[in-house]
């Protein structure tokens, strides 16, 4: 079902945990749909993401995409972090099953939400960042007959 990379990140998730007094925290998803991701960012004065942690309630893919997403933004600038799309997360994980693609969207949104929180706390505007939806609506998958 899952690629080896996904399994690796699920079995040994990187950056699990909380950051006390984080620069920004974003929570997306909802328990109703079975996926909640919370990302904590520690951003230094130069706008570098010094540390990142996550907590996730969700399936294997949700955990793995959270883990991978934190890896991809760690040490990056805010602008670089904004470029971490769900596609990038998926590719880094060697793909996801079609029904699990929304997990990677959630990961992207979680980072955006944390950045938005950081921006709000600091009264700044981040170029290219829109107010994130706090949920990814689950569209009925297309039947691709």
């Amino acid at each position, binding site marked *: 079902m899952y690629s080896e990379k996904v399994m690796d990140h699920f079995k040994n998730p990187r950056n699990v945990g909380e950051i006390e007094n984080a620069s920004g925290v974003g929570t997306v998803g909802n*328990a109703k749909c079975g996926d909640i991701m919370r990302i904590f960012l520690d951003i230094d004065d130069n706008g570098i993401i010094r540390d990142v942690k996550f*907590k996730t309630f969700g399936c294997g893919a949700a955990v793995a995409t959270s883990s991978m997403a934190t890896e991809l933004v760690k040490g990056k600038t805010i602008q670089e972090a904004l470029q971490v799309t769900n596609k990038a997360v998926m590719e880094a994980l060697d793909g996801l099953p079609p029904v699990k693609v929304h997990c990677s969207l959630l990961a992207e949104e979680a980072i955006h939400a944390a950045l938005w929180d950081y921006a709000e706390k600091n009264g700044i505007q981040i170029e290219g960042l829109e107010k994130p939806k706090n949920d990814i609506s689950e569209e009925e998958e297309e039947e691709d007959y």
Partner: protein
Amino acid sequence: MGKMIYLDNAATTKTAPEVVEAMLPYFSEFYGNASTVYEFGGKSKEAVSKAREIIANAIGAKENEIYFTAGGSESDNWAIKAAAEAYRGKGKHIITSKIEHHAVLHTCQWLEQSGFEVTYLDVDEFGVVKLEELKKAIRPDTILISIMFANNEIGTIEPVEEIGKIAKEQGILFHTDAVQAFGQVPINVDELNIDMLSSSGHKLNGPKGVGFLYIRKGVKIRSFIHGGAQERKRRAGTENVPGIVGFGKAVELAMANMETRTAKERELRDYLMERVLKEIPFSRINGHRTNRLPNNVNICFQFVEGESLLIMLDMKGICGSSGSACTSGSLDPSHVLLAIGLPHEIAHGSLRLTLGEDTDREDIDYTVDAVKEIVTQLREMSPLYEDYMKKNGRQE
């Protein structure tokens, strides 16, 4: 493969070695078509007859009331669609429950598209169909009641006898999906007033790809699979002789040891439930406490998501399920858990463990220990648990 503890017997079971042995001669030795004139085909025919006899006896039916199919799903589709077709002159109303298997639910939904009306009965918090609701739901144009014998997810055994009585009094056909119950609890179609009953071989250590539909004599439903004259012209398709023979053997074995097997399973089941409830906080048992399948345990662990739990159990060699195996690929939490009133986020955190003949106490202990460890681990990374703890403090 390392250690494996298989606790997903509700999804499918190991085909018993005796069953495989019984099947083997019918692949390459007595491979004749059972519907032929020559003696060689007669061997297949006899073997099929014998299996039919074993199965008929097991549910108190007559041999010519047993029709072999390709499994539980086909049996359910057949019973419901063909009953709708045959009795549409009488009416277009069907009664079923909210906790049926998808083979029943999706079939009913399909019928709704062509003008049938379906009442999906509520169940109580234990998953028991409410008889009063059933009685109220009956209309002059009700043609079929389809209520499962026992639920595949939470194991609750339904009040089939009462339902059969009500159906009979009202002159309404009664179909029951006994895919999970057959082989686990005694069934007598006459005593229970069952008109049609679905079963599937691979749920009781028989082969996959074979099932049967019991159709009471006098019930005038026709074919679902049209074609050749097999199964008394009611189910077309070259008879799956090895499959049918294996199914017969499996039923023979299951009937022979039902009492001792289920007694042992019941004990282990209760032991498992007790340990979990005692040792893992924020857990609850789903389904009826006592009136449940001997081998079924279904638990919800708050703040935890089921799939993650399953994968981590798998890493420890434990096979379990979260909701029905058939619903994997779906994103929605189990319709059964929602029907018994669980909120979505709790329903997502369910674990079904279904025991088999070979399960022993050591397996159960190992499993509970593993579950305990994993649930703790997952909660540590759960934002829901974090929120709850922040609100309510660490003490429980």
